[in-house]
């Protein structure tokens, strides 16, 4: 029995004269790892931003875990993102002024958890991702792979229902890339977290359960990935 956690219907979005999305229907199953592929400028980032409630589509709807995001105010969508969604980007996503622990603890603090409880959980997540010795380091003194692991820990520390990862290994070499992806997918599969993974890279997409291709604002196909 299909159990979609995200259901997008008829999504359109324009930026001035540019039509980024031209009527997309997409469903993502609970616990699924979905790869969204496509060339630069195809609209895949816009699609993910609509799915995550970062921006509102011009038309169409997005239902995430039973909540219609398009019917919510910006503040309500912010609350949904805080409680049910995690994000990982290619780079520049950690706050440079904070230690790894503080970076990871931040979403919990934003959600109203105590500092002590937030730090305890943050350190546990850093340990889980092999960064126990780097808890007090600032992002500037870490390697790219370590920084991405911190970002993954931060995205998952609130135990989100969905993790959006936009080229999470795009700035890493192949060894680090495999290590980071492996670690990320291990913990999300354990937790049953749904992952929407945007990537150019077929080898990265191969880690997904399913992949869709966005081209000129439309979904051009859905495939089962070929194992790397």
């Amino acid at each position, binding site marked *: 029995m299909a159990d979609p956690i995200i259901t997008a219907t008829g999504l359109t979005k324009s930026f001035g004269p540019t039509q980024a999305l031209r009527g997309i229907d997409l469903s993502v199953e609970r616990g699924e790892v979905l790869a969204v592929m496509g060339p630069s400028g195809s609209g895949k980032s816009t699609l993910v931003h609509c799915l995550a409630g970062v921006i509102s589509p011009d038309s169409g709807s997005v239902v995430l875990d039973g909540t219609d995001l398009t019917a919510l105010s910006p503040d309500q969508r912010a609350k949904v993102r805080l*409680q049910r969604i995690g994000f990982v980007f290619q780079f520049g996503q950690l706050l440079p*002024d904070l230690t790894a622990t503080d970076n990871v603890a*931040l979403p919990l*603090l*934003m959600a109203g958890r105590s500092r002590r409880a937030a730090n305890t959980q943050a350190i546990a997540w850093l340990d889980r991702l092999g960064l126990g010795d780097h808890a007090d380091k*600032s*992002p500037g003194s870490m390697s790219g792979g370590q920084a991405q692991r911190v970002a993954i820990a931060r995205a998952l520390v609130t135990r989100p229902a969905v993790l959006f990862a936009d080229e999470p290994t795009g700035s890493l070499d192949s060894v680090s890339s495999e290590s980071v992806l492996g670690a990320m997918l291990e913990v999300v599969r354990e937790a049953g977290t749904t992952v929407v993974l945007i990537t150019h890279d077929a080898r990265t997409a191969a880690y997904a359960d399913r992949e869709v291709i966005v081209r000129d604002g439309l979904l051009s196909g859905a495939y089962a990935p070929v194992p790397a």
Partner: protein
Amino acid sequence: MKPGAARILVLHGGAAYRRLAGIVAGVSLGVGLLLILLGAFLHMPDRDARSAWVDPQGAWLEATEDGEVIVPAATSTVMLAQSSQDYFDGSIISVMRMATAPDTDVTLPSGLAPPAPGQYYASAAMIDVIDAAPADQLGQRYGERLGELPAEMLKGPSQRAVLVGAGWDAVANRAGAVMLEGFPSETRYSASTTFQVILAIGAIAILVPIVLLISIVGQLGAAERRDRFATVRLIGAGRRAVAWLSAWEMAAASAVGAVLGVGVAAALTPLATRLTLNGATTYAADLTPSLAWTAAMVVGVTALGAATAWWRAFNDDVGAPGATRERAEKRVTAWRALTLGLGVVLMVGSAWMARSGIGPVVLVSYGLILGFALIAFGIVIAGPWLTRVASSALRRFASRASAVVAAGRLERHPRSTFRSVAGLVVAVFIVSAFAGSASAIQGLIEPKDRPGLLDPHAVAASAGPGVDAEAARAIVGDIEGVEHVAIGYWPEEDEASGALMSRADARAIGATDLPSSEGAIIDVFGMLADNGEGSGISIEPPRETSTAVRGDVSYVIAVTDGTTASIERTRTALFGVANPDLAPLTRADYANAGTAEVTNELAIMAYLGMAIAIGISALSLAVATAAAALDRKRTFGLLRLAGMPVRQLRSTVSIEATVPLAATLLASAGLGFGVAWLMIEVLGNGLSVDWPDPRYWWAIAAALAIAAASVTASFGAVRRSTELESTRFE
């Protein structure tokens, strides 16, 4: 680098133009204010020289062994002069009496003829006062008006001065009369050095926030600028080329700003002329430096701006794009408190030397001034360290996300975060030092608080020779508003000091604890001058006298109904019986003749300086906060993406401004009062520091309100710059 390439690199879009416009505006404001202060500084001796005749320096007249003045011969080349003070409605009037021979060759500035006995010249401000008051309250004191004193003879437009013509013998027999060759051009005492030091400190107090403002504006769009310069480095430009590009850019902006600053100075001068400086408002010419000084200022500011930009760009090597990561500032340590500590040690040491009488006075004075300057700069230098210490504590104990983000930022960027509030902090230090000092100046003590003081509505005249008591009672007693006339006599007792007075008269002027005898020796001068510990004078209690023998009249004291008209009418009438060397005066007049007027003048200057510093600092704070929000667009955008509400972002921005202020404002106010305490308690004669007057608290409240408004004004920028619709995440 080719000019075309440089133009593309420097003038790229609205943000770059705004940055350059901000630098130009900051420089023009700074140069404008500095030109006015420089003009005042340079012309301060001229002001003293012009009004030197008010307190002339000449040869004292010779006297016989029994103290009788030997009246010199009146010749055509010399004149006699004697200066004194008169009072009207709480203000001091400078009066100089002069006498010349009938065939005199002595000329006055602007070709004025020397006044004959019974004639006078008055300054424009004095003429206004004389014309506004009935003649029996003021005009009758000086005789027939001959004309107006020209600007060449005055410190400034508001100076109240009178040049009175008198007979040769009359002037010679006045206390303090001097003989001069020609009209006086040298003063006996000049306060210009003191005021020059005050102006220099004021210039520093204003300059610090302006330099900080320019520095903050120069950092606008820093992140984008670094990327651009990094790209230039990548495609082959050397480190020096980038440094020179920055230098030329700053030189052009500084030059334009400096030239505009000359216009700003011209525009602000009419306002600045209203400021009272060393006893008078200022002529515009006295606030305008020469063309050479103005040119030197423009060239100097331009060169300084260019050199600073070159040095910063050269040492802040941007490298190639992508190769650098977000960098924390170099760690600030406790060594930054060294300058502040040195200032405190110097200040305390100098005060101790002064109290102990060790070392020359000049050394002590310079030690105090240098100590003050070191403390002021020390606060700016130590501020980032205090900010880091406070933010470390905040980071440790913060429980909210906004506080954690703010603490992280503050701990890694204490210099730039403190810079935005540094001007405010220095302004608070200086005004606290002044307000603390001013708090020691006592107001007039009322007889109800200290029985035995002279009635505050009484006008006391030291009697001239041969005054007849009954005639004096008749002259003064008939004046409207006079309620009682008391007469004091020289007691004919060798050991006695004070005035012999009847019980009724003594009681009428305010004396208490009178002996049972008919007459008593009353300390009239003590009753007039005693104003608490700070005055250094205390009343001798009335004493019973063994003799009723009276000498000549020594005092004529009229108790009035207290209205200005009655007091001034009485004063004018008392001139007829008073010692010509001493104007009749009230207790308030005596107290004002001391330091109160100068202190009030300095207080106005200090508060004005603080207002300017606060205004500039508020602008700095607003620019810095908005610029920081724009530069951290990505960080704030990510936080909003992750679900942080805008109110938490606002809270972050507020905390980032509040912590450096809180960490240093209290310390700077405390240091200010500490300096005041040193100056007053250690060096003062029995004075003590008290709570400052309400103006201080208003100034502090205004500073905090403006700071809060500046931060609030940046909230819009925070929201706009982090709109998720316009932010790209990848």
